[in-house]
Protein backbone atom coordinates (compact mmCIF):
# COMPACT_ATOMS: atom_id res chain seq x y z
CA UNK A 1 0.00 0.00 0.00
CA UNK A 2 1.21 3.43 -0.84
CA UNK A 3 1.79 5.43 2.28
CA UNK A 4 2.68 8.68 0.64
CA UNK A 5 5.76 8.86 2.84
CA UNK A 6 8.29 7.60 0.35
CA UNK A 7 11.28 9.73 -0.51
CA UNK A 8 11.62 10.25 -4.26
CA UNK A 9 14.46 8.47 -5.97
CA UNK A 10 17.64 10.58 -6.23
CA UNK A 11 18.19 9.80 -9.88
CA UNK A 12 14.63 10.89 -10.65
CA UNK A 13 15.18 14.16 -8.80
CA UNK A 14 18.38 14.78 -10.75
CA UNK A 15 16.70 14.18 -14.10
CA UNK A 16 13.75 16.34 -13.15
CA UNK A 17 15.93 19.21 -11.98
CA UNK A 18 17.97 18.95 -15.16
CA UNK A 19 14.87 20.12 -17.00
CA UNK A 20 13.47 16.78 -18.13
CA UNK A 21 9.72 17.40 -18.24
CA UNK A 22 8.73 13.74 -18.24
CA UNK A 23 10.91 13.11 -15.19
CA UNK A 24 9.36 16.12 -13.52
CA UNK A 25 5.96 14.61 -14.23
CA UNK A 26 7.11 11.43 -12.50
CA UNK A 27 8.41 13.47 -9.58
CA UNK A 28 5.02 15.15 -9.37
CA UNK A 29 3.29 11.80 -8.99
CA UNK A 30 5.90 10.55 -6.51
CA UNK A 31 5.40 13.57 -4.24
CA UNK A 32 1.76 14.32 -4.97
CA UNK A 33 0.20 12.76 -1.88
CA UNK A 34 2.61 14.31 0.56
CA UNK A 35 2.35 17.81 -0.87
CA UNK A 36 -1.43 17.47 -1.14
CA UNK A 37 -1.71 16.45 2.51
CA UNK A 38 0.39 19.42 3.58
CA UNK A 39 -1.70 21.83 1.50
CA UNK A 40 -5.00 20.25 2.50
CA UNK A 41 -4.45 20.87 6.19
CA UNK A 42 -3.41 24.43 5.47
CA UNK A 43 -6.54 25.29 3.47
CA UNK A 44 -9.14 22.77 4.61
CA UNK A 45 -10.79 22.25 1.24
CA UNK A 46 -10.17 19.29 -1.03
CA UNK A 47 -10.70 21.02 -4.38
CA UNK A 48 -8.67 24.05 -3.42
CA UNK A 49 -5.95 21.75 -2.12
CA UNK A 50 -5.85 20.02 -5.50
CA UNK A 51 -5.57 23.34 -7.34
CA UNK A 52 -2.83 24.61 -5.05
CA UNK A 53 -0.97 21.32 -5.26
CA UNK A 54 -0.89 21.58 -9.02
CA UNK A 55 0.15 25.23 -8.73
CA UNK A 56 2.97 24.14 -6.44
CA UNK A 57 4.41 21.77 -9.02
CA UNK A 58 4.01 24.25 -11.86
CA UNK A 59 5.92 26.80 -9.82
CA UNK A 60 8.49 24.17 -8.95
CA UNK A 61 8.99 23.48 -12.64
CA UNK A 62 9.49 27.19 -13.27
CA UNK A 63 12.05 27.31 -10.47
CA UNK A 64 13.79 23.99 -11.00
CA UNK A 65 17.07 25.63 -11.95
CA UNK A 66 17.28 27.24 -8.55
CA UNK A 67 16.99 23.97 -6.69
CA UNK A 68 20.26 23.05 -4.95
CA UNK A 69 20.59 19.32 -4.45
CA UNK A 70 22.15 18.42 -1.15
CA UNK A 71 21.22 21.72 0.44
CA UNK A 72 17.53 21.01 1.01
CA UNK A 73 15.69 17.72 0.40
CA UNK A 74 13.41 17.97 -2.59
CA UNK A 75 10.30 17.46 -0.48
CA UNK A 76 11.30 20.29 1.81
CA UNK A 77 11.80 22.50 -1.21
CA UNK A 78 8.35 21.55 -2.48
CA UNK A 79 6.80 22.26 0.91
CA UNK A 80 8.27 25.75 0.82
CA UNK A 81 6.77 26.38 -2.59
CA UNK A 82 3.46 24.96 -1.41
CA UNK A 83 3.56 27.21 1.64
CA UNK A 84 4.07 30.25 -0.59
CA UNK A 85 1.25 29.14 -2.89
CA UNK A 86 -1.10 28.92 0.09
CA UNK A 87 -0.03 32.31 1.41
CA UNK A 88 -0.39 33.92 -2.02
CA UNK A 89 -3.85 32.45 -2.40
CA UNK A 90 -5.13 33.93 0.84
CA UNK A 91 -3.32 37.23 0.41
CA UNK A 92 -4.23 38.02 -3.14
CA UNK A 93 -7.70 36.91 -3.99
CA UNK A 94 -9.27 35.67 -0.81
CA UNK A 95 -7.92 37.59 2.20
CA UNK A 96 -10.97 37.09 4.36
CA UNK A 97 -11.99 33.66 3.27
CA UNK A 98 -12.42 31.11 5.97
CA UNK A 99 -13.03 27.65 4.76
CA UNK A 100 -14.93 25.05 6.66
CA UNK A 101 -12.79 21.98 6.84
CA UNK A 102 -13.96 18.84 5.13
CA UNK A 103 -11.73 16.23 6.59
CA UNK A 104 -11.19 12.88 5.00
CA UNK A 105 -13.01 10.22 7.00
CA UNK A 106 -10.79 8.27 9.36
CA UNK A 107 -11.06 4.53 9.41
CA UNK A 108 -12.83 2.50 12.11
CA UNK A 109 -16.37 2.18 13.39
CA UNK A 110 -18.88 4.68 12.06
CA UNK A 111 -19.80 6.43 15.31
CA UNK A 112 -16.31 6.50 16.62
CA UNK A 113 -15.27 7.72 13.20
CA UNK A 114 -17.74 10.61 13.29
CA UNK A 115 -16.65 11.66 16.78
CA UNK A 116 -13.06 11.44 15.74
CA UNK A 117 -13.75 13.40 12.59
CA UNK A 118 -15.41 16.21 14.54
CA UNK A 119 -12.47 16.37 16.89
CA UNK A 120 -10.07 16.40 13.99
CA UNK A 121 -12.04 19.14 12.27
CA UNK A 122 -11.73 21.25 15.41
CA UNK A 123 -8.02 20.61 15.44
CA UNK A 124 -7.55 21.41 11.76
CA UNK A 125 -9.60 24.59 12.14
CA UNK A 126 -7.61 25.61 15.21
CA UNK A 127 -4.41 25.00 13.26
CA UNK A 128 -5.51 27.53 10.69
CA UNK A 129 -6.20 30.00 13.49
CA UNK A 130 -2.51 30.22 14.27
CA UNK A 131 -0.12 32.76 12.82
CA UNK A 132 1.56 31.81 9.55
CA UNK A 133 4.92 30.82 11.01
CA UNK A 134 3.32 28.64 13.68
CA UNK A 135 1.16 26.96 11.06
CA UNK A 136 4.17 26.27 8.94
CA UNK A 137 6.27 24.82 11.74
CA UNK A 138 3.49 22.55 12.97
CA UNK A 139 2.50 21.50 9.46
CA UNK A 140 6.06 20.64 8.50
CA UNK A 141 6.75 18.89 11.78
CA UNK A 142 3.57 16.91 12.35
CA UNK A 143 1.70 16.75 9.07
CA UNK A 144 4.61 16.53 6.65
CA UNK A 145 6.54 14.47 9.19
CA UNK A 146 9.87 16.29 8.88
CA UNK A 147 12.40 16.07 11.66
CA UNK A 148 13.09 19.01 13.91
CA UNK A 149 16.45 19.58 12.24
CA UNK A 150 14.92 19.46 8.76
CA UNK A 151 12.33 22.06 9.70
CA UNK A 152 15.01 24.36 11.07
CA UNK A 153 17.11 23.92 7.93
CA UNK A 154 14.16 24.55 5.67
CA UNK A 155 13.05 27.71 7.42
CA UNK A 156 16.57 29.04 7.81
CA UNK A 157 16.14 29.30 11.56
CA UNK A 158 18.17 27.94 14.42
CA UNK A 159 16.99 24.71 15.97
CA UNK A 160 16.36 26.50 19.21
CA UNK A 161 14.19 29.13 17.52
CA UNK A 162 12.14 26.40 15.86
CA UNK A 163 11.79 24.58 19.18
CA UNK A 164 10.39 27.71 20.80
CA UNK A 165 8.03 28.43 17.88
CA UNK A 166 6.83 24.85 18.04
CA UNK A 167 6.27 25.06 21.79
CA UNK A 168 4.33 28.33 21.56
CA UNK A 169 2.30 27.02 18.62
CA UNK A 170 1.29 23.80 20.40
CA UNK A 171 0.43 25.77 23.52
CA UNK A 172 -1.66 28.22 21.49
CA UNK A 173 -3.34 25.35 19.70
CA UNK A 174 -4.29 23.83 23.03
CA UNK A 175 -5.81 27.17 24.09
CA UNK A 176 -7.75 27.50 20.85
CA UNK A 177 -9.12 24.00 21.19
CA UNK A 178 -10.11 24.63 24.78
CA UNK A 179 -11.90 27.79 23.64
CA UNK A 180 -13.66 25.85 20.91
CA UNK A 181 -14.78 23.21 23.38
CA UNK A 182 -16.06 25.82 25.81
CA UNK A 183 -17.94 27.62 23.05
CA UNK A 184 -19.48 24.39 21.94
CA UNK A 185 -20.84 23.62 25.37
Amino acid at each position, binding site marked *: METGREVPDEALV*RRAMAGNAEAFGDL*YIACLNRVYRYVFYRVGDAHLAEDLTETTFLRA*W*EAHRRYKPGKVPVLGWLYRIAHNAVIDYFRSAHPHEELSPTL*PAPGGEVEAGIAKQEEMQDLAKALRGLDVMSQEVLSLRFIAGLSHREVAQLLGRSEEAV*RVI*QFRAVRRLRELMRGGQNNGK
Partner: protein
Amino acid sequence: MANERRLAQELEACLEGLRAGRTLDDLLSTYPADARSLKELLNVASRLQDLPEAIPTIAFRGAARARFLDRIEARDTHRASLRPHPVHWRTAFALSILTVFLLSLFVGGGLTVASAEALPGDPLYGVKLTGEEVILALPHTPASLAELELTYAELRLSEIHALAARGRLDESAQPLNSASRDLERAASIVQGLGEPALQTRLAGHLGQVATRLNEVVDLVSNSPLGGPAIGSAEQAGKQASQDVDRVLHGVNPNQLAPGKNRTPVAPGEAGGGNGQPGNGQGHGKATPGAPDGNGQGSSH
Protein backbone atom coordinates in the same frame (compact mmCIF):
# COMPACT_ATOMS: atom_id res chain seq x y z
CA MET B 1 11.84 33.26 28.63
CA ALA B 2 14.26 30.79 30.18
CA ASN B 3 11.29 28.86 31.44
CA GLU B 4 9.81 28.82 27.95
CA ARG B 5 13.05 27.62 26.42
CA ARG B 6 13.29 24.86 28.96
CA LEU B 7 9.74 23.72 28.29
CA ALA B 8 10.32 23.92 24.54
CA GLN B 9 13.37 21.73 24.90
CA GLU B 10 11.55 19.26 27.12
CA LEU B 11 8.65 19.08 24.69
CA GLU B 12 10.99 18.35 21.83
CA ALA B 13 12.82 15.72 23.89
CA CYS B 14 9.53 14.04 24.71
CA LEU B 15 8.44 14.07 21.06
CA GLU B 16 11.73 12.48 20.06
CA GLY B 17 11.36 9.98 22.88
CA LEU B 18 7.86 9.00 21.76
CA ARG B 19 9.11 8.63 18.22
CA ALA B 20 11.86 6.35 19.52
CA GLY B 21 9.26 4.15 21.24
CA ARG B 22 9.51 5.31 24.84
CA THR B 23 6.30 5.47 26.86
CA LEU B 24 4.63 8.71 27.88
CA ASP B 25 4.84 7.91 31.59
CA ASP B 26 8.50 7.12 31.30
CA LEU B 27 9.19 10.41 29.56
CA LEU B 28 7.09 12.51 31.91
CA SER B 29 8.83 11.01 34.92
CA THR B 30 12.02 12.62 33.59
CA TYR B 31 10.48 16.06 34.03
CA PRO B 32 8.28 15.81 37.16
CA ALA B 33 7.99 19.57 37.65
CA ASP B 34 6.58 20.11 34.16
CA ALA B 35 4.86 16.76 33.70
CA ARG B 36 1.32 18.13 33.71
CA SER B 37 1.97 20.88 31.15
CA LEU B 38 3.97 18.54 28.98
CA LYS B 39 1.26 15.92 29.02
CA GLU B 40 -1.31 18.38 27.67
CA LEU B 41 1.03 19.65 24.99
CA LEU B 42 2.01 16.15 23.95
CA ASN B 43 -1.65 15.27 23.69
CA VAL B 44 -2.19 18.11 21.20
CA ALA B 45 0.95 17.19 19.28
CA SER B 46 -0.02 13.54 19.02
CA ARG B 47 -3.47 14.49 17.73
CA LEU B 48 -1.82 16.58 15.05
CA GLN B 49 0.27 13.59 14.06
CA ASP B 50 -2.86 11.45 13.99
CA LEU B 51 -4.73 13.64 11.54
CA PRO B 52 -6.08 11.28 8.90
CA GLU B 53 -4.29 10.76 5.64
CA ALA B 54 -5.57 13.21 3.10
CA ILE B 55 -5.25 12.11 -0.48
CA PRO B 56 -6.46 13.72 -3.68
CA THR B 57 -9.38 12.21 -5.54
CA ILE B 58 -8.72 9.34 -7.90
CA ALA B 59 -9.90 11.49 -10.81
CA PHE B 60 -7.43 14.23 -9.95
CA ARG B 61 -4.56 11.88 -9.36
CA GLY B 62 -5.28 9.86 -12.50
CA ALA B 63 -5.10 12.88 -14.75
CA ALA B 64 -2.52 14.84 -12.77
CA ARG B 65 0.61 13.92 -14.70
CA ALA B 66 -0.88 14.37 -18.17
CA ARG B 67 -2.49 17.66 -17.21
CA PHE B 68 0.76 18.92 -15.67
CA LEU B 69 2.74 18.07 -18.81
CA ASP B 70 0.11 19.70 -21.01
CA ARG B 71 0.22 22.85 -18.96
CA ILE B 72 3.98 23.23 -19.00
CA GLU B 73 4.00 22.53 -22.72
CA ALA B 74 1.33 25.17 -23.21
CA ARG B 75 3.38 27.66 -21.23
CA ASP B 76 6.48 26.97 -23.29
CA THR B 77 4.51 27.24 -26.51
CA HIS B 78 3.03 30.51 -25.37
CA ARG B 79 6.45 31.86 -24.56
CA ALA B 80 7.78 30.73 -27.90
CA SER B 81 4.91 32.50 -29.66
CA LEU B 82 5.88 35.77 -27.99
CA ARG B 83 9.36 35.65 -29.49
CA PRO B 84 9.61 37.81 -32.58
CA HIS B 85 11.87 35.72 -34.79
CA PRO B 86 13.34 32.26 -34.79
CA VAL B 87 17.02 32.32 -33.94
CA HIS B 88 19.20 30.79 -36.60
CA TRP B 89 21.90 28.51 -35.29
CA ARG B 90 24.62 30.90 -36.44
CA THR B 91 23.00 33.63 -34.37
CA ALA B 92 22.75 31.24 -31.48
CA PHE B 93 26.43 30.43 -31.84
CA ALA B 94 27.28 34.15 -31.89
CA LEU B 95 25.22 34.63 -28.74
CA SER B 96 27.03 31.81 -27.03
CA ILE B 97 30.36 33.44 -27.90
CA LEU B 98 29.04 36.73 -26.53
CA THR B 99 27.96 35.02 -23.35
CA VAL B 100 31.34 33.45 -22.84
CA PHE B 101 32.87 36.86 -23.50
CA LEU B 102 30.60 38.42 -20.88
CA LEU B 103 31.59 35.65 -18.53
CA SER B 104 35.25 36.49 -19.14
CA LEU B 105 34.54 40.15 -18.47
CA PHE B 106 32.77 39.25 -15.28
CA VAL B 107 35.53 36.98 -14.13
CA GLY B 108 38.07 39.66 -14.98
CA GLY B 109 36.44 42.60 -13.30
CA GLY B 110 36.16 44.24 -9.90
CA LEU B 111 35.59 42.12 -6.88
CA THR B 112 35.48 39.02 -8.97
CA VAL B 113 39.15 39.24 -9.83
CA ALA B 114 39.86 37.73 -6.48
CA SER B 115 36.94 35.34 -6.54
CA ALA B 116 37.79 33.90 -9.96
CA GLU B 117 40.44 31.69 -8.45
CA ALA B 118 38.37 30.84 -5.39
CA LEU B 119 37.82 27.18 -4.64
CA PRO B 120 35.10 25.48 -2.59
CA GLY B 121 35.66 26.36 1.04
CA ASP B 122 37.30 29.69 0.21
CA PRO B 123 35.56 32.82 1.49
CA LEU B 124 35.05 34.27 -2.01
CA TYR B 125 33.73 31.10 -3.58
CA GLY B 126 30.15 32.24 -2.99
CA VAL B 127 30.87 35.49 -4.88
CA LYS B 128 32.11 33.47 -7.80
CA LEU B 129 28.99 31.29 -7.89
CA THR B 130 26.71 34.29 -7.52
CA GLY B 131 28.36 35.92 -10.52
CA GLU B 132 27.70 32.80 -12.52
CA GLU B 133 24.08 32.76 -11.45
CA VAL B 134 23.71 36.36 -12.61
CA ILE B 135 24.96 35.43 -16.07
CA LEU B 136 22.68 32.40 -16.14
CA ALA B 137 19.72 34.61 -15.33
CA LEU B 138 20.23 36.64 -18.52
CA PRO B 139 18.09 35.68 -21.51
CA HIS B 140 19.68 32.86 -23.52
CA THR B 141 18.88 30.81 -26.53
CA PRO B 142 18.81 27.09 -25.79
CA ALA B 143 22.15 26.68 -27.52
CA SER B 144 23.88 29.48 -25.64
CA LEU B 145 22.41 28.17 -22.40
CA ALA B 146 23.79 24.70 -23.13
CA GLU B 147 27.21 26.21 -23.92
CA LEU B 148 27.09 28.13 -20.67
CA GLU B 149 26.17 25.05 -18.68
CA LEU B 150 29.08 23.20 -20.26
CA THR B 151 31.42 26.09 -19.50
CA TYR B 152 30.38 26.02 -15.87
CA ALA B 153 30.72 22.24 -15.72
CA GLU B 154 34.29 22.59 -17.00
CA LEU B 155 35.01 25.28 -14.43
CA ARG B 156 33.81 22.98 -11.64
CA LEU B 157 35.96 20.14 -12.93
CA SER B 158 38.98 22.45 -13.05
CA GLU B 159 38.28 23.38 -9.45
CA ILE B 160 38.40 19.73 -8.46
CA HIS B 161 41.81 19.34 -10.12
CA ALA B 162 42.95 22.45 -8.23
CA LEU B 163 41.62 20.99 -4.97
CA ALA B 164 43.50 17.76 -5.67
CA ALA B 165 46.72 19.71 -6.24
CA ARG B 166 46.26 21.39 -2.85
CA GLY B 167 45.45 18.17 -1.03
CA ARG B 168 41.84 19.28 -0.45
CA LEU B 169 40.04 16.67 -2.49
CA ASP B 170 37.76 16.01 0.46
CA GLU B 171 36.01 19.29 -0.47
CA SER B 172 35.19 18.10 -3.96
CA ALA B 173 31.60 16.96 -3.34
CA GLN B 174 30.04 20.34 -4.07
CA PRO B 175 31.79 21.08 -7.38
CA LEU B 176 31.35 17.47 -8.49
CA ASN B 177 27.62 17.65 -7.82
CA SER B 178 27.42 20.99 -9.61
CA ALA B 179 29.37 19.74 -12.63
CA SER B 180 27.08 16.72 -12.88
CA ARG B 181 24.00 18.89 -12.67
CA ASP B 182 25.28 21.38 -15.24
CA LEU B 183 26.17 18.55 -17.60
CA GLU B 184 22.76 16.94 -17.23
CA ARG B 185 21.05 20.23 -17.94
CA ALA B 186 23.19 20.75 -21.02
CA ALA B 187 22.38 17.20 -22.17
CA SER B 188 18.69 17.81 -21.66
CA ILE B 189 18.84 21.01 -23.72
CA VAL B 190 20.87 19.40 -26.49
CA GLN B 191 18.40 16.57 -26.72
CA GLY B 192 15.54 18.99 -27.19
CA LEU B 193 17.19 21.10 -29.91
CA GLY B 194 15.36 21.07 -33.21
CA GLU B 195 18.31 22.19 -35.33
CA PRO B 196 20.42 19.15 -36.31
CA ALA B 197 23.59 21.10 -37.16
CA LEU B 198 23.52 22.91 -33.85
CA GLN B 199 22.73 19.71 -32.02
CA THR B 200 25.69 17.97 -33.64
CA ARG B 201 28.10 20.72 -32.72
CA LEU B 202 26.95 20.85 -29.11
CA ALA B 203 27.02 17.07 -28.85
CA GLY B 204 30.75 17.21 -29.53
CA HIS B 205 31.32 19.60 -26.65
CA LEU B 206 28.98 17.57 -24.45
CA GLY B 207 30.98 14.41 -25.10
CA GLN B 208 34.25 16.15 -24.25
CA VAL B 209 32.97 17.49 -20.94
CA ALA B 210 31.45 14.10 -20.07
CA THR B 211 34.82 12.47 -20.67
CA ARG B 212 36.45 14.99 -18.34
CA LEU B 213 33.76 14.30 -15.77
CA ASN B 214 34.53 10.58 -15.91
CA GLU B 215 38.22 11.32 -15.35
CA VAL B 216 37.41 13.44 -12.32
CA VAL B 217 35.08 10.78 -10.91
CA ASP B 218 37.96 8.31 -11.24
CA LEU B 219 40.28 10.78 -9.54
CA VAL B 220 37.92 11.18 -6.60
CA SER B 221 37.10 7.45 -6.44
CA ASN B 222 40.76 6.50 -6.30
CA SER B 223 41.57 8.91 -3.51
CA PRO B 224 41.39 7.67 0.08
CA LEU B 225 38.21 9.61 0.79
CA GLY B 226 35.04 8.48 2.38
CA GLY B 227 31.78 9.84 3.59
CA PRO B 228 28.30 9.97 2.15
CA ALA B 229 28.76 13.38 0.51
CA ILE B 230 31.66 12.21 -1.63
CA GLY B 231 29.95 8.89 -2.38
CA SER B 232 26.75 10.65 -3.41
CA ALA B 233 28.70 13.07 -5.62
CA GLU B 234 30.45 10.17 -7.35
CA GLN B 235 27.09 8.56 -8.02
CA ALA B 236 25.77 11.86 -9.40
CA GLY B 237 28.78 12.05 -11.72
CA LYS B 238 28.25 8.51 -12.98
CA GLN B 239 24.54 9.14 -13.48
CA ALA B 240 25.21 12.33 -15.42
CA SER B 241 27.66 10.49 -17.61
CA GLN B 242 25.08 7.79 -18.35
CA ASP B 243 22.49 10.44 -19.20
CA VAL B 244 24.93 12.07 -21.60
CA ASP B 245 25.56 8.68 -23.20
CA ARG B 246 21.86 8.27 -23.83
CA VAL B 247 21.65 11.70 -25.44
CA LEU B 248 24.74 11.15 -27.56
CA HIS B 249 23.48 7.78 -28.72
CA GLY B 250 20.28 9.50 -29.73
CA VAL B 251 22.18 12.13 -31.71
CA ASN B 252 24.40 9.54 -33.34
CA PRO B 253 23.69 5.92 -32.44
CA ASN B 254 26.62 4.50 -34.40
CA GLN B 255 29.57 6.53 -33.33
CA LEU B 256 29.78 6.86 -29.61
CA ALA B 257 30.97 4.33 -27.12
CA PRO B 258 29.22 4.42 -23.77
CA GLY B 259 30.63 5.11 -20.35
CA LYS B 260 34.27 5.51 -19.49
CA ASN B 261 35.49 4.42 -22.91
CA ARG B 262 33.73 7.19 -24.68
CA THR B 263 35.83 8.71 -27.39
CA PRO B 264 35.69 12.46 -27.37
CA VAL B 265 33.79 13.59 -30.42
CA ALA B 266 35.22 16.30 -32.55
CA PRO B 267 32.86 19.08 -33.49
CA GLY B 268 31.03 18.21 -36.64
CA GLU B 269 31.44 14.48 -36.25
CA ALA B 270 28.83 13.58 -33.72
CA GLY B 271 25.88 13.85 -36.05
CA GLY B 272 27.23 11.15 -38.31
CA GLY B 273 25.21 12.52 -41.14
CA ASN B 274 21.78 11.51 -40.04
CA GLY B 275 21.37 14.75 -38.26
CA GLN B 276 18.35 13.54 -36.35
CA PRO B 277 17.68 14.50 -32.82
CA GLY B 278 17.35 11.83 -30.16
CA ASN B 279 14.34 9.70 -29.83
CA GLY B 280 12.95 12.57 -27.86
CA GLN B 281 11.02 10.36 -25.54
CA GLY B 282 10.12 12.40 -22.62
CA HIS B 283 12.63 15.10 -23.16
CA GLY B 284 11.53 17.13 -26.09
CA LYS B 285 8.27 18.22 -24.63
CA ALA B 286 9.30 20.97 -22.33
CA THR B 287 13.02 21.09 -22.14
CA PRO B 288 14.18 24.64 -22.55
CA GLY B 289 13.64 25.73 -26.08
CA ALA B 290 12.40 22.39 -27.32
CA PRO B 291 11.41 21.39 -29.85
CA ASP B 292 11.14 24.47 -32.00
CA GLY B 293 14.71 25.33 -31.21
CA ASN B 294 14.13 28.99 -31.51
CA GLY B 295 13.35 30.14 -28.10
CA GLN B 296 14.64 31.48 -24.94
CA GLY B 297 15.78 28.39 -23.25
CA SER B 298 15.04 28.93 -19.68
CA SER B 299 12.27 30.01 -17.48
CA HIS B 300 14.42 32.28 -15.45
